[in-house]
């Protein structure tokens, strides 16, 4: 979350081998370099790697929904829910855009809102 309140997603990249990871380990997971991978801001466009329409989940979770793995154009891989699409129209390589949301309206114990995200078909407004 930037000071302006604008949300963004960070990945971490190893300066020695270029490997990208979703969180910051103490040393690079790929090359073991002791220089911790550094944060970089990723863009909001990517492509679907795989997906599944989930019809049964943990108790209390509303189904169905589409779970997908997305490779962002900047190299980071994210898991997310794809909204507003007919599952039949999904395919490997389908371009999608990341949209920030309010994480279902959940609030922290101190009342602060959470920031979440989901994916939509690239070009689709939501």
């Amino acid at each position, binding site marked *: 979350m930037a000071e302006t309140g604008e949300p963004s997603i960070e990945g971490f990249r190893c300066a020695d081998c270029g490997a990208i990871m*979703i969180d910051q380990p103490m040393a690079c997971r790929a090359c073991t370099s002791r220089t911790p991978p550094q944060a970089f801001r990723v863009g909001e466009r990517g492509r679907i790697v795989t997906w*599944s329409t989930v019809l049964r*989940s*943990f108790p209390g979770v509303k189904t169905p929904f589409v*779970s997908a*793995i997305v490779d962002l154009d900047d*190299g980071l891989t994210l898991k997310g829910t794809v909204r507003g699409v007919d599952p039949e129209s999904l395919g490997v390589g389908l371009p999608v855009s990341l949209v920030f949301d309010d994480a279902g309206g959940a609030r922290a114990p101190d009342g602060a809102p959470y920031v979440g995200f989901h994916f939509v078909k690239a070009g689709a407004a939501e």
Partner: protein
Amino acid sequence: MSDVYVVGADLIRFGRYPDRTPAQLGAEAALLALDDAGLTVRDLDIVYASSTFNAASMIGQQILKQIGQTGIPCVNVSNACASGATAFREAFVAIKSGLYDVALAVGAEKNPKGLLGGPIGDGPSPEGLFGSGTTPAMFAEAGMIHAGKYGTTMEQFAQVAVKNHHHSTMNSKAMYQRETPLEEVLASEMIATPLTKLMCSANVDGAAAAILVSEKKARELGLSRAVRVRGSALASDPYEPRNPVLLDADSVTRLAVSKAYEMAGVGPNDLDLVELHDCFATAEILHYENLGLCGDGEAGALIDSGATALGGRIPVNVSGGLLSKGHPIGATGIANIVEIVMHLRGEAGARQVQGARLGLAHVLGFSSVAGVAGVHILEKA
């Protein structure tokens, strides 16, 4: 270093045991394996006890409280779905080191009901908001990659369940012993596309045990029913760019199996049967290729050919597998070794793989953040 032999192996019937503790289930399996070996608890030098959900309760010592507190060392193991294979491997290492002559590897589990796993930590549950973290969804997504890359069909995934449910009709220790034709598998409740309920492992309680001994002890007991451990490997998930966001069942399995083949000095074409980790039908398809039973992209054709059914070129999961025999998490990695041992001895009854001399047992374990694979290769002594 001396070879390591399995001289006792057995399991209890997998099912639900609401009135019994995990340690009681493990103790029953341990006694069955000791009886099978013609040994008593007094012959044991060390115990490795696996239970994914109960290792922290010192399940190994609890088992000894059921069958005899002889004071021997006991190591409790939790390593996701590879817990049993880890306990077996540690017993192998202990014998191989020369420190001990007789080791018990025992796995016991009472699985929680329903979908395993679930939200952890603070904040809103990520499930549904950020995709799905259920195990069926993860293996559905892994299977859909195979489908996208090679054209693997829903029917080919479903045929894995048809085959393994058929196999378990010949296994009196399996949870299910009922044929499930293709139409029934496809028509059962859809959990996460392409996985229907009958393509997900049976969530059960169970226990299995094996007695491992040194060459000296094996010769003392007689080698007629002994099985030699030819290869043992355990691997943690290596770095892959999408890991752990995308469950990577492949690289960790390939790492473990290549080490096991190397240790055994054999390859996939030398195997007579395989028990692999079919936690979901999609997983079995992936592992045909991961274990080298066919080339990359050929797994769909392999299941269609019937080669992996009993009577085929390389029967896979003739026990019924996790899909039908059942998947009591911490016992699974020992139960699949017990199955291999039965075939190598020629004691598997109606589902016997004729003339079996070499078999492989594989497990894959993972959490939302990490993975593990274990592979053992066993040979008729």
